[in-house]
Structure formats: C-alpha cells, structure tokens
C-alpha cells in the first residue's frame, strides 16, 4: 500500500509540473481562441536565455529579469509582426503562424546560445523527504508551490481585472471586441507577455531537472492531454488536468506497464484524454459553447 501511495503522490507532483506548461497554453487560448504551438519553444527560449546569461557570469536575479525582458520583447514583436496582420483571419491562420514562430524561436535559441546542454542549479534540493516510508521529492514540493502561486495570481487577474474580462470578449469575437472599444493589440501583447513569464518559470523548473537543452521544447507535448482534460480555457482546469494526467500515467506505467510491455506513460494520457473527449468535449472546466443555429 505504501508503494501505491508513493506512486500516486509522485504522479500528482509530476502532474503539477505538467500543469505549469499547460498554463501557458491556456493563457493564449483564452485571449485569442488559438492553440499556441510555440509554447514549448517559448519555454526553451526563456530557459536558454537565463542559463546562457548565468553562464556568462550574470547573477541569477539579473539573468531572470533579463530573460523576462526578452520574453516581453518577444511578445510585443509577435503581436506587432504576426498577430496584428492576422486580425479577423480564420483561426487556423493564427495557429499556422504559431507553428512558424516555433521554428523561428527554436532556431534563434540555438543560434544565439548554442546547442550545448547547460546545468541549472536553482538551489532547490532534489533529495527525497521520507514521510511514513513514502519518498517525496523536495523539488516537486517547491514546484507545486510555485504552480499554485501562479494559478492564484492568474485566476485573480482574469476574474477581478478589467483586462481579464476584456480577454474573454476578445477570445469570443475579435471584430465585436474591437467594435466596443477593447484594445485588442494591447490585450494580445499583455497575454503573450504573461505566457512568456509562465514559460520562463516553467523553463527554469524543467531546466533544473533535465538540464537546459533542446528537449525542453518536447515537454510541451505533456501539456496536451492536460488541457484536453481540464479544458482549453480554464486555469483551474490546467491544474486539475495536470494532477489527473500525472497520477494516472504513473499508476498505469507501474501496474499496467509490466503486463503490456512497459513504456506506456507517453501514450496512456492521450488515451485517457480521448475517452474524456467523447464524454466531455469541452473538458472538465472548459466553457460550453452554445451557438445560435
């Protein structure tokens, strides 16, 4: 039983790390109704900028602020050069634009900071904590706390600020939002900057675990089943979805894996998400879409 609890707790904590990535996707989707394919590349760009600057001798905090500034500049440029010309275009065009952004960001990150793998020590211990025979990672606990703080911050922003409410209008209909005086450009720049900040935090935590390297772009794939489960528009859903995916994939890998050959945790969450889609197409917390026929 202790082993099962350990697997479950480990899975839940791993799920929080997935939620962090999912948060970035949800932010952009809420603002534009577009799935941001470039979120993984943003994680890579933010983390390589931070690690590259630290490598050059910058202090951690200064490198953090500089990386944040880079992500904000990236957000402003994206809004001005990519999104603004595509206002009122079909959403598939915006989606394709984010695919293009992915390759630009990945290439630029490797061109500027090289392809070398960099270690990242945030000073958070990754040694286990033993509670009644169950090992819990201290690093995962810190990551959970960070994700929790980000959720509270972002949820408050969307719920209690004028900009947050404006975001929802923008997501529903660009033209209608513009016609009632909502500054679409400013909203988009703001949201992309917020997604950049989330990408930076995500990149630092994942980079600390795996090393800052190109593979950080691939961790974004972990967020897809999370947002399918939690809903594309819900910040709370990203957390709940992350917990569900993390726990179920670890339990499945340990108990189901040996029966069917192992190595199932990559595809198992997608099966779960697919089944979920059949029952709740909008996810657990996603907004139900009602359209006049």
């Amino acid at each position, binding site marked *: 039983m202790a082993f099962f609890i350990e697997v479950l707790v480990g899975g839940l904590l791993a799920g929080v790390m997935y939620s962090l990535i999912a948060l970035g996707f949800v932010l952009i989707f809420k603002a534009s109704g577009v799935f941001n394919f470039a979120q993984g590349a943003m994680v890579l760009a933010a983390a390589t900028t931070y690690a590259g600057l630290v490598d050059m001798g910058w202090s951690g905090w200064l490198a953090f602020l500089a990386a944040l500034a880079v992500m904000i500049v990236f957000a402003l440029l994206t809004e001005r050069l990519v999104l603004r010309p595509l206002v009122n275009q079909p959403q598939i065009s915006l989606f394709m634009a984010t695919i293009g952004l992915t390759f630009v960001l990945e290439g630029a990150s490797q061109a500027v900071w090289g392809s*070398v793998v960099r270690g990242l020590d945030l000073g958070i211990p990754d040694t286990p904590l033993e509670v009644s025979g169950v090992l819990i990672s201290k690093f995962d606990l810190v990551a959970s706390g960070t994700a929790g703080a980000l959720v509270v911050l972002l949820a408050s922003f969307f719920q209690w600020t004028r900009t947050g409410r404006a975001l929802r209008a923008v997501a529903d209909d660009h033209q209608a939002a513009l016609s009632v005086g909502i500054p679409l450009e400013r909203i988009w720049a703001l949201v992309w900057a917020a997604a950049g900040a989330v990408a930076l935090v995500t990149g630092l935590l994942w980079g600390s675990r795996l090393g800052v390297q190109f593979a950080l772009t691939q961790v974004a794939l972990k967020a897809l089943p999370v947002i399918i489960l939690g809903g594309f528009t819900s910040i709370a859903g990203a957390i709940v979805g992350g917990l569900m995916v993390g726990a179920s994939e670890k339990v499945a890998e340990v108990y189901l894996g040996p029966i069917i050959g192992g190595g*199932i945790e990559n595809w198992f969450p997608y099966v779960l998400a697919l089944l979920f889609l059949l029952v709740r197409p909008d996810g657990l917390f996603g907004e139900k879409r009602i359209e006049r026929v």
Partner: protein
Amino acid sequence: MRTTKRWWWSGAVSALVLVWAAPARAEGEQFMPVPSYRVGPYAAGGTSLYGGFIDYMNLINMRDGGINGVKLTWEECETEYKPDRGVECYERLKAKGPTGASMFHPYSTGISYALISKVGHDKIPLVTIAHGRTDAADGRYFPYVFPLITHYWSLNTDIIRYIGEREGGMAKLKGKKIVHLHHGSAYGKEPNVVFQKQAEKYGYEAKIIEVPAPGSEQQAQWLEIRQFKPDWVIVTGWGVMNPAALKNAVRVGFPMDHIVGNFWTGSEEDVEPVGTAAKGYISAALNPPGKESKVIQEIERVVYGAGKGNMVDKKRVGSIYYNRGVLTGIVSVEAIRVAQGKFGKKPLTGEQIRWGLENLNLDPARIAAIGATGFIQPLKVTCADHEGGGAVKFQQWDGTKWKIISDWVQADKELVRPLIEESAAKYAKENNITQRDCAKEST
C-alpha cells in the same frame, strides 16, 4: 558552313578542357560526406562528434598534405538525426567528388537502418561505429555495413564483465539483481537479447524496464527500480534521458557508483546538468576524454593554431563526443590508407574503400604512430568480422570531469559471435541474401 565550323571548334575546346580538368581533380581529392546534426534535440552531441571528425580530416590535409598526397574534401548535410533527412543527405552526397562518397557515417541508429539496403546497391560503406544494426557485424551477409570498434551486444558483455570484476568475479554474479533501463527505441532495445542470455549464463536476476522516448519523465521507472532493489542498474540512454535517469536515481536514493551507462550515456552533456549529485556514476567509454592524447594535441597545434578549427565552442575540444569524432576520423583515414596500398595512391571508390575497411589492422605500433595510444583499441577487421574490436574502457564522473577507471575490458566474443551469425543468417534468409565466400575475397 561557318557556323558549323564554329560549333565544332567550341565543342573541341570544351572537350579538351573537360579531359584536362577531370584527371586533375581525380588525382587529388577523396570525398567524404558529413551527415551532421548541429540543430535539433541531439545537436549538443552532433556538433562535437562531427566537429572532431572534420578537425581530424583537416589535420591530415594540413599536416600531411592528405592521405599519401590525396586531399580529403567533405560536405556537410544537416540530418537533425532524422531518418528521412539522413536518407536525403545520403542521396544528395553519394555521387559527389571524383569517385563518389568514400563512406557514410550517420551516427544515428534510425538513419543507419534506413540505409542498409541502399549502401549495398550503391557500393558505399556504411560505417556505424558503436551504433546501428548489431548483426551487421557479420560481413558475410552485410558486405557494406561496418559496426566498427564495438556494438551494443559486445558492449553488454563488457559491462557485465566489469560488474563481475567489481563483485569479485563472474561467479559472484549468481543471485544478484541487475536492471536494464533502456530508451524506448530500436536502439534502446538492442542489448536486451544479450542481457538475458548473460542472465542465463551467470545466474543474475534480470529485469528490463523501458523508458518511453525521449525519456524526460522516469519517475515511475525509478519507483519500480526502488521496489525491485537491484544491485546494479545498466542504463542505455540517449539525449535528455540520461540526466533525467541520474536525477531520478538521486530522488530514490540509488547509489551512483552502482549505475553503469553505455557509451551513449557517458558524455559531459549527460552529467553536467546533474552536477555533483552525479559524482560516482560510471559509464562505458569508447574513447577516453581529455587532451592527453598526442593526436588531440596535434589538432590543437596544427588546426586550431592556424585558426581552422571546426568547433565554435573550443572548450568542447577533448570532450567525449569530440574525441569520438576524432576516433571516427582515424579509422576512416586508416581504411583509405590501407585501400591505397592495394589500389594506388589516388581517389578511390566506395567499393575499393570497403576492401580497406575489411583489411584494416590497427596494431599497437600503428596506433602509436598515429599518436593515439590508449585513445583507440587495437583493431583487426576482416571480411567476416566487421566489428574488429569489441572492448571498452570504463570511466567515472568525479563531479567535474570524467576519469578513466579501467583498462580495455574485452567483450565475450564466444557468447556474442554465434548470436550475431544466427541473427544475420535469419535476416539474410528473409531478404534472399546469399552468403559471401570470404576465403575468395580476402586478398
């Protein structure tokens, strides 16, 4: 009539130019394709691997004026480690140079699998040092594939022998528990058959655990390991899987000095992200790290001294992957040199270079002359045996750098060779390949 005459003259002049130019090129250049991966997820390894390879070819050109006066030329093609891009690069480069591609070094198991049937048709050797299809070491069925130096099956026996030595003898392995944690790919699964055969031979309890690619998440696997309580964990990893494995080992409190990685799980890139927590971790080494070897010092003196070095990040010169690239250069150049001994000091075809590879005999004296004593193992390749070596050294991470902790540990060829022959014969039967008669071809 005047127009016809003018055409005749210009045609004759063009033909003369071509006749004059073609032999001039053919006498001087041996073309080497470089299917590198400098962008994408495996760029960190690819940049150093191919950087070392190019630097060694540059050394031969700059210091020796080429191989017996035949200059090496090369062209890079970016594969991003992807099989489709690798095949595209092969097709693009195979006919370049006066005699076509000398050989092809994909350094990707996926790309090498995709090219196995093509290289036989094009008569271009596919050199798969420490990667690719293992049973291709049987040259009787795979005449153009060369898993030179060592392959995954020999490697597994090297690792088990090393573990046996650490336990106080192979007999002490009986009753021990050993886990093979592997990358969820054809590459990762390759050693499983030998790992299990050796479990039958030595009586250890074997457990195989797969990590889904790319391997960034391994929590469940390491919890399984914790529950199994093994004495040793062997890791066959690649890329991000490697630091993730070590980080997870720390999280479950598994001792680092009882984890043994293979030669693709033992570079600086694999341990630096883990830092001092990886102290004590052991891995197999195809080549030692560092700049102690004369050949690396020569590259620094001649190539980097002239500002012609390929590595932008010069700190990586002497890294594990860089030195592996130099190793690749050494065996490639030596094979061409051997082939020149038979076919003449001129640019050679892939078919002629295959003969050079099959008659490659790097003995200690030749290795010393190259300046690579201790850097490369003695190597004797034959028509039937396309591996030629089989040994590895072992190295340990001291928190800041790799330190060699063993001499060359030899493979258990008595166990491996019959398995290779059996597997190769099966492949040949399925693909209607007739066995070569090596007795007729060796001279």
